[in-house]
């Protein structure tokens, strides 16, 4: 019904939207999501032809190209066959007319109904959107924001348009009003096509069938709404979801590094993307079908960085790790949870190459890891449990952090020193000469672990294996280290394999949790799923025994299984 082809909107030299292709059929709801400034509103306005910018391309509405219509023809369609609810409530309603009159106005103006019929229909609509009768004759300034929004929705639907464009319809409302209006909107759909422009993922997920993610004026990912939200494939989509406070995810909120910049050569997202390769900087990726969704990314979306296939490790007759299969995507944290002796550390040491696997294969970035050479260790680094052990007692802070650079033969001595000092700063340690010359026994446990983290990061690895990095630290220092790791993930797009016996820690830092028992992975699912709906009895037991402050008697599913 609505078909947009190669839409390009520009204000002067600034291109706001570029190369937009969209289809919307009747009865369908498409949500456009993205940060502010990505051009979402401009898209809605362009369809209505209300933007002052220069529009190029085709917008076919019911077989007619809206861009070729005269302003007169357009006026007949606008508010009649297509309507829009605007973002900024205050400017839209006329302050000198009562709300009932305003809702009835489009019907009268388009000559569809007589005045009395129009008023009847208007009250019906206002009632449907939950405005109480005694408010019908009120003036806009007498209404609350929620009530004004209800009026606007009623107004937009007055002429029963075939296309409804909702621009941030509910963003400024409180959650209770919001969920009420969402329900009303869901019921009032019928044959109508809807375009919901929002940065609110909750609204999008509740209203939309399909979801398009807009970044820098381009669509980067489009597909089934639930699918996209549950398994985001474009790095930007995932970043948006991670930054959105919600009850589904258990991991701490993370921002997106950097700010949106325009114009950009190549992929619009590449300055903030964490899996950039050369082509991303030079060539614009086109939307392409892959696995049931369209995605614009040279790397085909978020890549699988580490893939462990049926890896086993036995010591004599003991199978410490028994045919384990794991996958870690770029920028993702997988927590490996299990009690001591379950084979977590053995698995980590097998992946990093300190143990030779007895069977199975490890793939890194799609390439089979045959020998763990210097190249491999540039990409994969490990933080060990005991920082006092993992730092050599005869190396100063600076020497320790420089060691990987020396081994890898990176740069000149001066460059190595500069790089090491910079990394020491990144892990929030003092960069003073005095501190750099300290030896491990002069540092606290937290400082030592930070030095160890700096040492692991100095080669700019893509994957960090953290083996109980906070096991030897007290809770407040542990919290700081965890925050640091999350920030580093945001900044560097670091993937992490986080090993812990504490599922309470795992849920805070990880996207997915894999539960390990007796050398096997018994459950591997998104963290929220593991925490809320564990499938295995053992997982429930882990959850039940996880630290808790017992403020209230939790109706814990795990407790009855003990």
């Amino acid at each position, binding site marked *: 019904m609505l078909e947009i082809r190669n839409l390009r909107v520009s204000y002067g030299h600034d291109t706001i939207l570029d190369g937009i292709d969209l289809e919307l059929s009747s009865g369908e709801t498409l949500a456009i999501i993205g940060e502010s400034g990505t051009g979402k509103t401009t898209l809605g306005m362009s369809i209505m032809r209300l933007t002052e910018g220069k529009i190029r391309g085709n917008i076919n509405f019911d077989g007619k190209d809206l861009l070729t219509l005269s302003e007169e023809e357009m006026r007949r369609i606008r508010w009649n066959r297509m309507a829009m609810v605007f973002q900024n409530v205050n400017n839209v309603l006329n302050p000198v007319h009562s709300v009932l009159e305003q809702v009835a106005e489009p019907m009268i103006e388009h000559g569809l109904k007589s005045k009395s019929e129009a008023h009847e229909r208007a009250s019906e609509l206002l009632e449907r959107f939950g405005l109480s009768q005694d408010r019908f004759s009120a003036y806009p300034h007498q209404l609350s924001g929620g009530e004004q929004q209800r009026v606007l929705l009623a107004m937009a639907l007055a002429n029963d348009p075939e296309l409804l464009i909702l621009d941030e319809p509910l963003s400024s409302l409180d959650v209770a009003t919001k969920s009420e209006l969402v329900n009303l909107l869901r019921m009032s759909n019928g044959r109508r096509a809807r375009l919901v422009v929002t940065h609110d993922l909750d609204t999008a997920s509740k209203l939309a069938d399909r979801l398009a993610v807009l970044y820098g004026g381009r669509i980067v990912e489009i597909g089934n709404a639930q699918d996209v939200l549950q398994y985001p494939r474009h790095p930007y989509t995932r970043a948006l979801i991670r930054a959105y406070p919600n009850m589904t995810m258990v991991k701490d909120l993370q921002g997106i590094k950097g700010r949106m910049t325009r114009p950009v050569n190549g992929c619009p997202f590449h300055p903030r993307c964490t899996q950039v390769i050369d082509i991303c900087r030079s060539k614009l990726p086109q939307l392409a079908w892959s696995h049931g969704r369209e995605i614009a990314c040279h790397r085909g979306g978020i890549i699988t960085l580490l893939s462990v296939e049926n890896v086993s490790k036995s010591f004599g007759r003991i199978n410490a790790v028994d045919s384990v299969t794991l996958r870690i995507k770029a920028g993702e944290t997988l927590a490996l949870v299990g009690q001591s002796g379950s084979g977590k550390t053995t698995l980590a040491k097998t992946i990093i190459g300190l143990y030779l696997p007895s069977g199975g294969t490890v793939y890194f970035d799609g390439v089979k890891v045959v020998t763990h050479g210097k190249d*491999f*260790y540039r990409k994969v680094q490990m933080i060990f449990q005991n920082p006092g*052990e*993992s730092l*050599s*007692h005869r*190396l100063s802070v600076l020497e320790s952090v420089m060691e990987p650079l020396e081994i890898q033969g990176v740069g000149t001595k001066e460059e190595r020193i500069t790089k090491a000092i910079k990394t020491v700063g990144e892990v929030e340690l003092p960069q003073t000469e005095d501190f750099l010359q300290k030896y491990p026994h002069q540092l606290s446990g937290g400082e030592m672990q930070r030095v160890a983290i700096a*040492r692991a990061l100095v080669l700019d690895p893509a994957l960090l294996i953290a083996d109980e990095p906070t096991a030897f630290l007290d809770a407040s220092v542990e919290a700081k280290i965890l925050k640091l790791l999350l920030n580093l993930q945001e900044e560097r797009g670091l993937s992490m394999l986080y090993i812990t016996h504490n599922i309470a820690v795992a849920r805070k830092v990880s996207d997915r949790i894999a539960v390990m028992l007796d050398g096997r992975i018994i459950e591997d699912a998104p963290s929220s799923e593991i925490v809320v709906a564990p499938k295995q009895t053992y997982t429930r037991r882990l959850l039940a025994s996880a630290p808790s402050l017992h403020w209230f008697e939790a109706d814990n599913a795990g407790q009855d299984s003990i």
Partner: protein
Amino acid sequence: MHIDLKKEIRESSPGKAGMAILLLVIVLAILAPVIGRYDPIQQSTTTLLPPSQCHWLGTNHVGQDIWSQLLYGARTSLFVGFSVGILGLLFSILFGISSALIGGLYDRVMMRIVDALIAIPMVIVVILVAAYIKPSLFILIFLLSVLSWQGGARVIRAQALSLKERGHVNASRTFGASQFYIAWHHIIPDLAPILLVEFIYGVRRAVFMEAGLAFLGIGDPMVVSWGTMMHDALRFSYLDVWRWWLVPAGVALSLTIIGLAFISHAAESALDPRLRDEAVA
């Protein structure tokens, strides 16, 4: 293990005594041309003289000055001792650490070789071989080195095996470090105290072996050595000359060995917590 070995040795009384003795011997050896006054090889017609103003310890059966022979003998002893100490230690490090790091079949073969060498009585082998090839000083040094690394290698291997599982060694591996890098930057520095003990032990043994071989008359007769002096002096034991010929050489040798023994004793007690004073208290 934070042990400042030098400090430990300086602060123990046997350590101090040992250092003093060794220092004295070294100084005398260095100053030999100055205070010796005679060329120790130079023969003269004035044989078997008793001590006098000219010859402090008299002369021997071919008219050489015994005092300067004693001084130059210290040079030989120390030269052989330290050379064998260093060379033997290098062999020990090479084979001990490589066994520990490489492991597997190589390790097993190396350790069986070490077992075999330890089982063979080294003194007998050295005497037999030396008697057969009549070695020069350098060949003697090489011979002693080749036959004296096995004990050290075993100790070093054992220590390196435990060191290589240390966190910082594993960490270094995860930066892509080679075995050589790990040995050089992580294992050898941590082994330093043990290496020092092994070294002093090697020196002591070599000093003793050199003197012993020379005493048996197997060494190079042209080399001035305490062992040769005792060997020669013994033939004239029916005369009074033993008092200024045999005894000074024997005392010098004994002192040197005792000095080295004191140092190794001090170093060993510093390394072994059970031997340390505070552990007893």
